[in-house]
């Protein structure tokens, strides 16, 4: 009898999963695995999530594990931190990270610093998650990127996934981590499907926090990015490849602790570095990368100063034409690479 060779088997293999579904799976699996895990936030339960990320979870796990809160960020963030201190493992959702500003004292002073202040007596195993950065047409108060703000603080881990595997693997790690993790999602990525490997579909699949990923190998220039702009970098790399410029694209995955080693290793190979982010330039992720590269072993390998591609240093405008010009476009990345390479 004829047995199909492995490559013809259809029973398992890669599947297309949206970032939203990957996040949903991560939470579902961790809720099932550990009964101390619970989700709290606005509209997370009966509404299935403001952006449907928690769809189906309330139906499956009920009121005790999936908790709708009033619009009281400072209050419920504090409540979540308290629950974590008492040994539960809360996932605290902010409808967007813009609203986390209401609660930032609890994130920083109650969550981030406590293990240190208690000299190791009091861990705070909490995940703060939600969409971060610009969406489409949501204007100034709803479009800010908080990566730099949170990554500034010792005691916090700050994670910023790009694709579905990132989303699932990193969220699972974040939930299993005994430390406060700020998990920065992106609303525009929620509906984007990505192929997820067979391995990544396992309930034990996690991605380590603090390790970047080389999404594309290249010899001429290193592009470092996080979240949605990793995709922009890959698009730019594809265009540049036609002109014989090979970009190495690094997906940071974690902002803090940052995998500087991966960046340095790459720069020592390519001699050129361009950082790409959606956030504002001043005191941002790119600024930190510049500083770290200058302080480390890769500095002497640079043939040109590091170039930062960032959001424009203004509050986000509403009008489409202005919004489009407020964030890095693929052509800005291409332009910056060429300027950095002096071609």
């Amino acid at each position: 009898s004829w047995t199909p060779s492995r490559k013809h088997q259809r029973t398992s293999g890669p599947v297309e999963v949206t970032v939203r579904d990957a996040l949903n799976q991560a939470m579902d699996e961790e809720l099932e695995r550990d009964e101390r895990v619970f989700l709290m936030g606005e509209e997370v339960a009966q509404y299935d999530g403001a952006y449907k990320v928690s769809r189906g979870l309330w139906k499956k796990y009920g009121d005790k594990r999936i908790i709708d809160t009033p619009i009281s960020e400072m209050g419920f963030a504090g409540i979540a931190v308290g629950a974590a201190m008492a040994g539960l493992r809360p996932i605290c959702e902010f409808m967007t990270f813009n609203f986390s500003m209401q609660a930032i004292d609890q994130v920083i002073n109650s969550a981030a610093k406590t293990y240190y202040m208690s000299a190791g007596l009091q861990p705070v195993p909490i995940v703060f998650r939600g969409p971060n950065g610009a969406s489409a047409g949501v204007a100034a108060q709803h479009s800010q990127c908080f990566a730099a703000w949170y990554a500034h603080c010792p005691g916090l881990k700050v994670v910023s996934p790009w694709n579905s595997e990132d989303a699932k693997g990193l969220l699972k790690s974040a939930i299993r981590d005994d430390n406060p993790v700020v998990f920065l999602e992106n609303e525009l990525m929620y509906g984007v499907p990505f192929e997820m490997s067979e391995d990544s579909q396992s309930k034990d699949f996690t991605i380590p926090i603090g390790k970047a990923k080389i999404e594309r190998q290249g010899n001429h220039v290193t592009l470092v990015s996080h979240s949605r702009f990793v995709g922009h970098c890959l698009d730019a790399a594809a265009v540049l490849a036609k002109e014989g410029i090979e970009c190495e694209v690094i997906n940071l995955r974690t902002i803090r602790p940052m995998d500087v080693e991966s960046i340095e290793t790459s720069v020592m190979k390519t001699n050129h570095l361009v950082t790409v982010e959606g956030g504002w330039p001043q005191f941002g992720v790119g600024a930190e990368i510049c500083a770290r590269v200058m302080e480390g072993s890769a500095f002497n390998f640079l043939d040109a100063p590091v170039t930062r591609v960032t959001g424009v240093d203004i509050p986000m405008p509403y009008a489409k034409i202005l919004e489009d010009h407020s964030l890095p476009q693929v052509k800005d990345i291409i332009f910056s690479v060429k300027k950095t390479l002096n071609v």
Partner: protein
Amino acid sequence: MKTMLTVISNALCRITGKNVGARVAVTRNFADFTPQVTFDIKKCDLHRLEAGPPVKAELTREQGLQYYRTMQMVRRVELKADQLYKQKIIRGFCHLYDGQEACAAGIEAAISPSDHLITAYRAHGYTYTRGVSIRQILAELTGRKGGVAKGKGGSMHMYAPHFYGGNGIVGAQVPLGAGIALACQYRGNNQVCVTLYGDGAANQGQLFETFNMAALWKLPCVFICENNKYGMGTAVERAAASTDYYKRGDFIPGLRVDGMDVLSVREATRFAADHCRAGKGPIVMELQTYRYHGHSMSDPGVSYRTREEIQEVRSKSDPISLLRERMLSNNMASAEEFKEMDVEIRKEVDDAAQFATSDPEPPLEDLCNHVFSNNPPLDVRGTHPWSKLKSVS
């Protein structure tokens, strides 16, 4: 039902063979209409108040037509915004106010343009009542340079003199409102600030901090909770341990008002503003109202409430219908008049929409402007170091 005037004009037509009466029918204040009526309005529930607003409200024909026009205009603008959003000409967030018109119209009828008002993101109605043209409102929604914020603010960020938006962060406008009231007190100008928030925002801590300071310092602040029964997808009972929002100011007196009746809203607001102007400190008003649309255009609005409920409110408590019925049944105006007004309003809204869809987007030169006020021109970094942009005040 033929009025005397119609009978007369028809007779004149027959006699003279000319269409004499037609123009006469739409003259305002024609003797045949009742010029003023006193209506009974619902008694308000009171908290820490000995007496409340009057239970009778006077309405002149002129006022009635004006309130009608205001409410109908807001209604039509919101429905136009719905349409434009579905055509993707309006983007991002769009929180519509249809159903709640009596609140905006009633409040404005009770205060003066020199008073102040601030609200949250369901703000198009107030933007209009506070004096911004519908052209400028719609053009802001479509993100054009003719918008009231030059296209840079969008739905939630429209401003005007003595109107402080339009605020995107739930509850944040409440301390701001008290601050505006502080400025009024500071200047001794007898003005008040009307500070609006929703039932969802009523659970924000910053409200209670504000209530405390406003009461302590006797700020002339009229806190108004527009309770439309749902904070996004969450019904009030699931969000609030106490849904008596008019009592949530605790030590601050409060009143609960029928927010679907423009006269009730007006009388209550007048009462509240007088309270503040008399130096008695802040007051909390709860307006019981309803929104026909979901929370925003991204929310169908039927996963957490029934279509029957929405339909019931529309048929029994619609604020515009309520006013029209009152005026018609008291012979304060004719059905034809209302119809004509509706046609006029629709045309105005269509014209405004035409402007809003044909006006150009703001120029790129405007991208970085308005970062600082009263400041020398600033260099602004673009998306990369070779992009050097300019910002002027």
